């Protein structure tokens, strides 16, 4: 039996040993860091098989039983996010162009803390892992080492600090109202103790706090600057896997402590506002990385809306939208980096990079939700989950969703028109290093198209 604490411990210990390993020999350090992440992913897969055979596991860290001890809950839903983090990190490993030792150490920190964030079921422990993820993100956001990158990272840190303080305040209020921090315990106490104004205020504070990483309105103003100034791989990782972890925390809260309290309405509201502001800002933006950044705000809004539905009705849909985005958005960022930032840079670029253009628009179509791509099924699931609730508000939400898809189509087709412009552009040497992960992600999506039926069944089982 694999101890789930290893998923956190292996990358964290390696992160702290990394400077020493680099001193032994740079090659040792360079090889160890991704290897540790690979080991983490393999351990995660081992746990996945174990859960498939004998059901979800609750592990008390250090043998201290809950409610006093801290527990990890290992189930398929949590493991999906932990594995998405690890696998994305492997695919998007920094190419070591800047400060290799620090970048690699921060990546390990991100993977370890991300796994902890996905698996932990203790509110305060979630806060600690969230802060670890945040600090690793601030460092990675600044990894290009330009003044603009430092300024963007600092803005991110100030906003993140504000959010974290509010998250801690929310956690404090939950503790004050219930005297417990264990989510399983809170699931019993929550319906009576947290359904009042105090409990709902706590949820709003936590939504604000965890919403920074989840790119939720209004805590997402860091997104365009950071994605425009950091490396494409870091932007891809943050928009892809890291942002979903923030939403997973909120989902866990809604499924346990806040089940049946109506707190989901708060998440639904910020989700809707994220969709509207994100997609409209993407439509107005004129630079490729900002368009992709704003579009990810919109997509995360979709996931938030799905997760906010009462009684976990939208978990399957949210998971599908989230996974579609985890696969699609990183590849778009990678390809966009090779092309350049401004729309004027990419005029007629398809002539020089036909493969990239095809991958870009294949993935882009899935983002919009064009059948038969997985993005279509994800949005279809979300729409049917919304309409099945039979509430008027949900019908309006569904209408907003469809409108958002039209806006998404408008700005992606605008990019397509520029990219396929017949006028020849200046020949540009695009690095091949980014084409491999982008191609692998494209291949993943293609496989998902082919095996959509078993994939849908698996997701339905995961979201239970």
């Amino acid at each position, binding site marked *: 039996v694999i101890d789930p604490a290893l998923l956190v411990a292996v990358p964290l210990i390696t992160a702290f040993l990394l400077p020493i390993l680099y001193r032994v020999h740079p090659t040792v350090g360079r090889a160890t860091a991704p290897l540790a992440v690979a080991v983490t992913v393999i351990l995660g897969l081992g746990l996945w098989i174990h859960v498939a055979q004998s059901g979800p596991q609750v592990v008390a860290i250090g043998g201290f039983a809950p409610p006093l001890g801290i527990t990890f809950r290992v189930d398929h839903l949590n493991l999906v996010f932990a594995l998405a983090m690890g696998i994305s990190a492997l695919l998007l490993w920094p190419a070591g*162009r*800047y400060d290799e030792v620090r970048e690699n150490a921060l990546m390990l920190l991100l993977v370890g803390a991300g796994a902890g964030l996905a698996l932990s079921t203790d509110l*305060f422990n979630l*806060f*600690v892992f969230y*802060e670890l993820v*945040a*600090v690793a993100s*601030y*460092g990675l956001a*600044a990894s*290009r*080492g*330009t*003044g*603009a*990158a*430092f*300024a963007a*990272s*600092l803005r991110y*840190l*100030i906003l*993140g*600090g*504000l959010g*974290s*303080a509010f998250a*801690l*305040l929310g956690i*404090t209020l939950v*503790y*004050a109202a219930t005297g417990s*921090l264990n989510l399983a315990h809170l699931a019993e106490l929550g319906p009576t103790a947290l359904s009042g104004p105090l409990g709902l205020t706590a949820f709003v504070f936590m939504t604000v706090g965890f919403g920074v990483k989840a790119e939720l309105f209004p805590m997402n103003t860091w997104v365009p600057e950071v994605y425009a100034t950091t*490396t*494409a791989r870091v932007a891809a990782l943050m928009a892809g896997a890291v942002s979903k972890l923030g939403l997973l925390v909120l989902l866990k809260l809604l499924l346990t402590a806040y089940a049946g309290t109506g707190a989901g309405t708060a998440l639904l509201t910020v989700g809707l506002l994220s969709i509207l502001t994100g997609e409209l800002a993407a439509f107005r933006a004129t*630079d490729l990385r900002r368009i992709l950044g704003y579009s990810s705000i919109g997509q995360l809004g979709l996931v938030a809306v799905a997760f906010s539905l009462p009684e976990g009705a939208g978990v399957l849909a949210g998971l599908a939208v989230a996974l579609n985005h985890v696969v699609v958005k990183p590849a778009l960022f990678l390809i966009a*980096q*090779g*092309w*350049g*930032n*401004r729309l004027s*840079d990419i005029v007629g670029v398809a002539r020089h990079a036909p493969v990239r253009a095809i991958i870009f628009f294949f993935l882009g179509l899935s983002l919009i939700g064009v059948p038969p791509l997985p993005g279509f099924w994800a949005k279809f699931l979300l729409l049917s989950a919304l309409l099945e609730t039979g509430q008027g508000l949900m019908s309006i939400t569904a209408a907003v969703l469809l409108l958002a898809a039209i806006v998404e189509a408008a700005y992606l087709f605008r990019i397509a028109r520029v990219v396929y412009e017949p006028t020849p552009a200046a020949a*540009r040497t*695009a*690095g091949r290093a980014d084409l491999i992960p982008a191609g692998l992600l494209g291949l993943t999506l293609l496989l998902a198209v082919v095996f959509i039926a078993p994939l849908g069944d698996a997701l339905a089982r995961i979201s239970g």
Partner: protein
Amino acid sequence: MTTLEAQLLGYILYAGAIGLILLGVFAMVAFRHLIRMLLGLALLEAGVNLFLVAVGYRPESAAPILTGGVPGSMVDPIPQALVLTAIVIGVGVLAVGLALVLRVHRAYRTLDTSELARAIAREPEPTAQELRLPGGAP
């Protein structure tokens, strides 16, 4: 200590915590100087930490440390353990923030956010070539 005094102390604790939180948020929103914003963050964190300790406070209770005999009543030890962690995290984040402030100042010679925004807007957008190459790290 009478019950009234204990109640009063509780109110003072909560009023202080909420005051610090409001002051911190105000400083982070109203000021444009980066160090002032970070100081606002420090105030906000102090307020939240005080709030956390106040939640665990019980009148007429000993600190939750066993020194021989068992006292009749102890304050809730869990918030104290949490606050310890939260303080450490807060200091770490603040240190990272100040390190970034140094780098920003080295690059632009200003810490005023609106001046910074203007300076950054004046910079040419990086070309595709530059996006793939190391930036001008100081």
